[in-house]
């Protein structure tokens, strides 16, 4: 087996029904994995942007690139992992149990460390919003787990190439 690599693809597609099924079907039909997927309309409402994280050896990654390109509704495919340096973010909403004020204070302090924002607060729980790259979110989730996570929702990764210097 050749070494597995993780790649982030940015895929611009026609904003039409059925396109996501074609992209997903490409992966399921060939036994390729999707680790994370995010889809949303861009500033041009006729175009959607898909950020897709996958892994595989170099040959599989190349296949994925070509097969994405082959889909008729795909306008452009960029492998962000090879096309240059990129920035990436994910967002997580975490509902943490805060039965007593003591615990709530601690949770808020930890949230501060991760630059989390409180977006809802009830006597026994609060909801935090944290953004960051994968490593930061993992660290945050690990910590909040020790306080008791009641519910968690997380976006897929979104990413783009850094701007050019000139």
């Amino acid at each position, binding site marked *: 087996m050749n070494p597995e690599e993780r790649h982030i693809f940015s895929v611009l*597609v*026609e904003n039409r029904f*059925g396109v996501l*099924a074609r992209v997903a079907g490409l992966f399921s*039909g060939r036994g390729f994995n999707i680790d994370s997927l995010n889809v949303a309309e861009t500033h041009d409402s006729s175009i959607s942007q898909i950020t897709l994280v996958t892994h595989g050896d170099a040959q599989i990654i190349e*296949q994925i690139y070509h097969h994405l390109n082959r889909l*008729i509704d795909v306008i452009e495919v960029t492998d962000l992992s090879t096309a240059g340096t990129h920035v990436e973010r994910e967002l997580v909403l975490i509902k943490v149990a805060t039965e007593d004020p003591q615990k709530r204070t601690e949770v808020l302090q930890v949230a501060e460390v991760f630059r989390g924002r409180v977006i809802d607060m009830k006597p026994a729980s609060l909801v935090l919003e944290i953004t960051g790259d994968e490593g930061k979110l993992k660290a945050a989730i690990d910590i909040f787990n020790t306080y008791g996570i009641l519910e968690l929702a997380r976006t897929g990764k979104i990413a783009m190439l850094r701007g050019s210097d000139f």
Partner: protein
Amino acid sequence: MELSGAQILVDSLKREGVEYIFGVNGGAAMPIFDALYGETELKLIPMRHEQGASHAADGYARATGDVGVALATSGPGATNLVTGIATAYMDSIPMVAITGQVFTHYIGSDAFQECDVIGVTRPICKHSYLIKDCDEIADVVAEAFHLAKTGKPGPVVIDIAKDAQLHEALFKYPETVDIRSYKPQVHGDPAQIGKAAALIKEAKRPMLYAGGGVVLANASEELRQLTLKTQIPITVTLMGLGAFPETHPLAMEMPGMHGSCCANYAFTDADLVIAIGARFDDRVTGDLNKFAPNAKKIHIDIDASCIGKNVPVDVPIVGDAKKVLTELNKQVGIADIDPWRAQIQEWKQKYPFEYEQKADKVMPQYVIEQIYEHYSDAIVVADVGQHQMWAAQYFKFTEPRQWLNSGGLGTMGFSLPAAIGAQLGCPDKTVVNINGDGSYIMTIQELVPAVTMKLPLKIFIINNMYLGMVRQWQELFHGKRYSAVDYHDNPDFALLAQAFGATGLRVEHTEDVVPALQKAQGITDGPVVIDFIVDEEENVFPMVPAGAGLGDVIRGLS
């Protein structure tokens, strides 16, 4: 003036120059069939099963190079088309499959005869459209034809809700099609072509390996020029047969599992393989670790995802075979490889396709040889199994689009309906259908339209009373346990042909083969079926067992 969606569809198809549409009627497609009623420019060919309709459209496309069109109703009509769509997809055949769909307001409600055709066909077509509004029909048809025939060709599915067929709109057909997300790369990168020319110059044991892509790209002429200019030996795959004349001294015949020893040995010893519109299919390469181990590889293909998929490639060239070969031909000259040519000739002489004439048996290979003697110019449409391999081995194809078969999906039942499509597309050609007793009965009902239309098809059944190819594997790899392959209970195909209104002949002795073929030549007012009762347990050789390397080919005789 406003027209119904169904009429807009028919007028759009006419704008695309469609001559024939193969179909079976049903509720959700009735407005379309109604619009086709009495139509003379675009002729509706009623088939007896939707699978037959899709293979007929496919056969028409393979024989002519134009887009074939099939039509079916929703639900079961559409699912019956699926095998034909998948068959066309695997061999990259330009086709448009049109299905009726239930009324828009019923879609998603499990309505009567509703089926998510777009969902079902998603992995087996190049693209698909669901039309809910009759305003979209003209644009979608134009796009669908453009997609079906450009780039890497393939089937496109158009599913049209019944209300979209019935509602009215103005008909305006687009003059041009521009799909921003679809720009096939047709011109090969000049730098890559230069590298390929350099490799060809250096090689001591080069070989050309051409596939069905050459036929699809109409690049046979350019392939011939390349071969003749360089005098490099060439093997043409099952899908490409005829792209280069098999009668030429440089032709090594087809490679692979049942290919010639010469071609397979050449792969094993070559130092350069030049692949053109061929995809290193497992039936060609055998064990990949032993495939062309000493060879650099040049791969020319319109489909980037095809290159490097199975075999690492040194010089990939993405582009249209015709355009790339035209450029490459300007940069190559005769190769200085006399010892290699001599080696090829030696293998060719030593290991031709051969069989043993058993006493009192009609040998299937002999029948094919005689079919070749009597019909060397015909379009040959084969089905799937041993007879297909014998036809590929013993008929010498000299022209592209002369040999039609389901190579990729290996669909039994393909050949009779495909022969109907081919005959309609090429009325001046003789169309020979080489069929198997198992394959024939899978779509035998299509003999009805062939008789009705008085098509002069020559339907030759190589009847070994078995699913022969499977029986061969059972004999070799399953201890002769002949599970579910015995077809001795089939009906008498000659009598059955007569019941259908065709001429039916039965041949049981070697000396009757030629007279029967001669007799068939004289029958031109309808199909003739000859049931050749051949040796039941003859096997196809040479054979590279699954998983073995090409060098380990079992030659069979000697």
